[in-house]
């Protein structure tokens, strides 16, 4: 019996890791996997070779090589007979990599936002495929906030996203599996603060910046800042590769360009040489450079010159 259980656990681990590893080939896709009722522990960790991730099924052995280069954002533990997976391409502003978001139907996502932000948030949830993950949108400024009256619906864990409203503790949600994210900004950029619980004394992380809707989606799914940072560290190399590709390509596409376009290409080359390579440590200056690169790309298109990316 034990050897059968071990074999089934190993097979399930292999199947889940293979599905996750293959998912970046299909960006913008939402999938549901039916599995044997199991406990999945998803972790991002460092080893001698760098950063890697693994999926551990029912406290069994795990392999940390399959997901070494795949950024997987998820709660630390998912239990049940279904896995929900969504993939999104992250661009900043050029396409860099595909992010994988993992969860299930027993995790509830609760968005708390002021009334004036509700339609923009709903649009974001719709566009980013987040609508397929069980969620509620509560209004924070209707007399007494709807969040104050929100009751435990019996889910395994709750992830509360305070979107342009204050972090507000709720005494009904003290389980350590519940976490919160404070988002200040719009769906394209702003700042993030992770909370390790929903009680009054919950610890909060340092504030970090995000750029792009896909990065915000990834933060919504991350267990905490450590998990988010760990997976973003995998992306730093992809970002560097994308930049090198554009730098190597630039002389070819700019040769023979008119003087106006050459000016744009020179600026673009300067920006590419100067971009901060750690996506988890973006500053306002970094975002300014990315915006400038986006503007240059549009100007080149207007002038009928090959674009930088």
């Amino acid at each position, binding site marked *: 019996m034990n050897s059968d259980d071990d074999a089934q656990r190993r097979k399930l681990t292999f199947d889940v890791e293979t599905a996750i590893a*293959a998912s970046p*080939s299909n960006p913008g896709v939402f999938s549901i996997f039916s599995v044997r009722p199991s406990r999945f522990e998803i972790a991002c960790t460092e080893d001698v070779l760098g950063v890697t991730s693994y999926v551990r099924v029912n406290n069994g052995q795990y392999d940390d090589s399959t997901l070494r*280069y795949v950024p997987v954002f998820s709660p630390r533990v998912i239990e049940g007979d279904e896995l929900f997976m969504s993939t999104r391409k992250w661009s900043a502003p050029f396409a*860099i990599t595909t992010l994988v978001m993992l969860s299930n139907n027993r995790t509830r996502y609760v968005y708390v936002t002021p009334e004036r932000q509700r339609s923009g948030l709903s649009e974001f949830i719709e566009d980013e495929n987040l609508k397929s993950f069980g969620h509620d949108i509560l209004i924070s400024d209707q007399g007494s906030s709807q969040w104050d009256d929100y009751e435990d619906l019996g889910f395994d864990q709750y992830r509360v996203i305070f979107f342009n409203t204050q972090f507000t503790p709720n005494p009904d949600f003290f389980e350590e599996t519940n976490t919160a994210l404070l988002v200040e900004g719009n769906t394209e950029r702003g700042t993030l603060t992770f909370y390790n619980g929903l009680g009054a004394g919950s610890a909060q992380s340092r504030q970090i910046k995000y750029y792009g809707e896909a990065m915000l989606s990834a933060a919504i799914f991350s267990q905490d800042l450590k998990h988010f940072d760990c997976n973003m560290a995998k992306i730093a190399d*992809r970002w560097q*590769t994308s930049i090198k590709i554009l730098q190597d390509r630039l002389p*070819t596409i700019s*040769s023979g360009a008119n003087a106006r376009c050459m000016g744009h290409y020179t600026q673009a080359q300067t920006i590419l040489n100067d971009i901060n390579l750690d996506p988890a440590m973006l500053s306002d200056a970094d975002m300014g450079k990315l915006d400038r690169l986006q503007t240059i790309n549009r100007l080149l298109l207007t002038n009928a010159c*090959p674009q930088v990316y």
Partner: protein
Amino acid sequence: MKGQIEFGETIMVVIVIVFLLVIGLVFYYNVSASQIRQEISHREDIDGIVLGKRVLALPEIECSVTEGGSCIDYYKTSALSGLIQSDDAIESYYGSLFGYSTIKIAPLDEDELGEELEEITLYDDPLMGEVSISQQFLFTTIYDAKQKLTRIAYMNITRYTVARE
């Protein structure tokens, strides 16, 4: 005497039955082996197509936003090819994606549409020794940013696995 004849007949019947059983087993084995070979070949084709799809989905070589669709950029692909050859860390990452394979992308000649584009060997890591080779071809569109032309190209994917006996 009569008993001996009957015994002989019995032996003959047994021999014929055994002979028929052996023929049946050999036939069954050959059919099964043929089905297994077909299944392996089919899976190799799928694996090659999956690998090709993985290449086409690489964000770092996708066409600019104005082109859209399933399209790869010729000069980005050429630049990536150079980086894979010159940078060990980058080669290691793409080795984890592509395994033992050779991936070439060849724009089709279209003389009326401008200068010819050379074939790109995006990745080349063959397996040495006794290997089985499977080859698939996929078609894609490739964008020449310099001449602002979109062409048809084919991707030649050669996969290497340890030879089966």
